[in-house]
């Protein structure tokens, strides 16, 4: 299956993932961290949604909640029309195969004692798919698909470079032909020359198979390469979401403008660069400010921004912003 990808097409495609009012708080002795605070979004079949924000904004917590690695406090995660939140582990198991995750650190996610063959066979075993001979064949196919060789199956993770290990993680993620892969900083640990290889691989797989990605990264360049739409997160909230072209050419939220104009080497290329600058750093998610959470750093903030949280409202087709002034 190979369908040409464009953001318009993706909008018409059926919804793979629907997240509604998702809340994830962490409670510790120091207080409650508002990691994800009422997030709603959709991803269509074969679409790449980029999720950007600075550390502590909740983007990883959101990703982990979507794949079921974190229990949520409230809200819904719906995959292909099935609501996963609230299911027991047993109920969840058959649905798990449809959503996979690729992490930043392939060291941490690949068991060092297992051969690549074992690592790639596991998903089939867990779900009881295929005979031994079939699985072996599929492993070889998977390795080729991610740019490795069939004989790599006998090796252990430490015998590979960082880029190759990330290829193995990707092979594992695509083994069961999921509908959605959540990529959490999947290329952030790689050198730029290797990063390009993995980005091209992820894009090729996505176009060949029609998998959707939620692509989480702090690196806007990387997100911009893969994503058709981009969501910007700040302290547990989505503050702006729209197509890449819209966000690049006419970002409405002051934080989006700041974020994009902070990209190194990008100063002169954007018409809106230099239009806005901020000081300070994101406040602690332990005690998010009242009203608009960005108001403490926003040069445009007015009285109501300090008390009244702005809703995420539609400003144009497919473009939503949470700012009183946008």
């Amino acid at each position, binding site marked *: 299956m190979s369908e040409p990808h464009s953001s318009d097409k993706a909008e018409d495609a059926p919804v793979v993932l629907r997240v509604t009012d998702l809340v994830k708080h962490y409670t510790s002795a120091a207080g409650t961290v508002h990691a994800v605070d009422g997030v709603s979004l959709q991803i269509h079949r074969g679409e790449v949604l980029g999720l950007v924000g*600075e*550390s502590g904004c909740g983007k990883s917590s959101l990703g982990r909640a979507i794949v079921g690695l974190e229990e949520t406090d409230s809200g819904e995660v719906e995959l292909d029309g099935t609501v996963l939140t609230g299911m027991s582990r047993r109920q969840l198991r058959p649905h798990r195969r449809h959503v996979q995750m690729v992490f930043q650190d392939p060291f941490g996610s690949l068991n060092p004692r297992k051969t690549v063959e074992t690592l790639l066979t596991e998903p089939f075993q867990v779900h009881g798919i295929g005979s031994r001979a079939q699985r072996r064949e599929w492993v070889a196919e998977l390795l080729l698909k991610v740019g490795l060789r069939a004989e790599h199956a006998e090796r252990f993770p430490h015998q590979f*470079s*960082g*880029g190759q290990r990330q290829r193995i993680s990707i092979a594992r993620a695509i083994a069961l032909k999921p509908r959605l892969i959540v990529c959490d900083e999947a290329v952030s640990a790689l*050198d*730029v*020359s*290797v*990063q*390009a*290889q993995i*980005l*091209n691989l992820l*894009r*090729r797989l996505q176009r060949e198979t029609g998998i959707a990605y939620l692509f989480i990264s*702090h*690196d*806007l*360049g*990387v*997100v*911009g*390469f*893969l*994503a058709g739409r981009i969501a910007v997160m700040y302290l547990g909230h989505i503050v702006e979401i729209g197509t*890449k*072209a819209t966000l*690049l050419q006419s970002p409405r939220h002051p934080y989006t403008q*700041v*974020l*994009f104009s*902070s*990209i*190194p*080497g*990008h*100063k002169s*290329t954007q018409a809106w660069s230099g239009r806005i600058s*901020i*000081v*300070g*750093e*994101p406040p602690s998610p332990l005690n998010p400010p009242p009203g608009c959470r960005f108001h403490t750093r926003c040069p445009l903030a007015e009285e109501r921004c300090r008390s009244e949280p702005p809703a995420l409202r539609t400003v144009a087709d497919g473009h939503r912003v949470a700012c009183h002034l946008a």
Partner: protein
Amino acid sequence: MSPPNSSPTADVVLQVRGLTTVFETPASTVVAVNDVSFSVARGQTLAVVGESGSGKSVLAYSVTRLLSPPGRILAGEINLGGRDLSKLDESSLRAIRGRDLAIIFQEPSTSLNPLMTVGEQVLEAITEHQPETTRAQAMQSVIERFRLVGIPAPEQRVLEYPHQLSGGMRQRVMIAMALACGPSLLLADEPTTALDVTVQAQVLNLIDDVKARLGMAVILITHDLGIVADHADRVLVMYAGRFVEELDARSLASAEHPYTRALLACRPDVTHDLEDKPLIEIPGTVPALDRLPTGCAFMDRCERRQDICRQSVPPMLNIRPGHRAACFMASAPVAETNR
């Protein structure tokens, strides 16, 4: 940003010649920095760019003489303010570090003492090099420096411990400490790699600002060519322990070395996919330093390689004034240099 210095001999702050650093173990000797020469002038920012394993951090540790065994400087000169750092003993070096030479690392928390307030630590740096200063004067000077580097409420911040500050604030403290004695050279090794992008921009702008104000020379070690374009005057590209190209930061687009060109091309740009083209890839990975091919170290990944590349290591050749590249295939080399 100051204009690139057209005559490198004027106002040269640091001159490094033929620096070679090795790591010696009973099993092997690895050359991590291989015969590199460069200089940096007052008011100039020189960026040293490379991927992991390029030797850029070993270069930083060598120049500042912070290298620990099994690393060792095998050869070369490191001239700073008329003295060759490669020949000095530890006590002379300590006097120079902090006073003439300031250093900032990627992770400020590893360079700060967790048991001491940040004010006290910067104060120590000042009094060590200016013993005649009274404590009250020195603390006043710390507060002023905190203000200079954009730390809000400096009177309170000096009383806090490193863990009470954010990463960005800690890096500002490091910069305040680095600048305590008005050094002539600031060496910053990946100073913003651990920081968020909006904070990164603030810290890099701060470094530019104090450079201009104090007339320092800056060596900025980074893996990010975007940072280079925005904040450097000159660029040195490192690969497998050697310099492969040196040029004006503004001329990056006319880089000649295939590695530099590929590095520029494989970097995803946020606007890239509007054209819907795949990224340029560099096949393979950076070779391990103990398994370098003979000849050019980039050869196995290079699409322009010829037989000659296999036979000998290409020397740095002048492409045009201020632009050198170590590639046999670079266009129109005019003469060999030996700066």
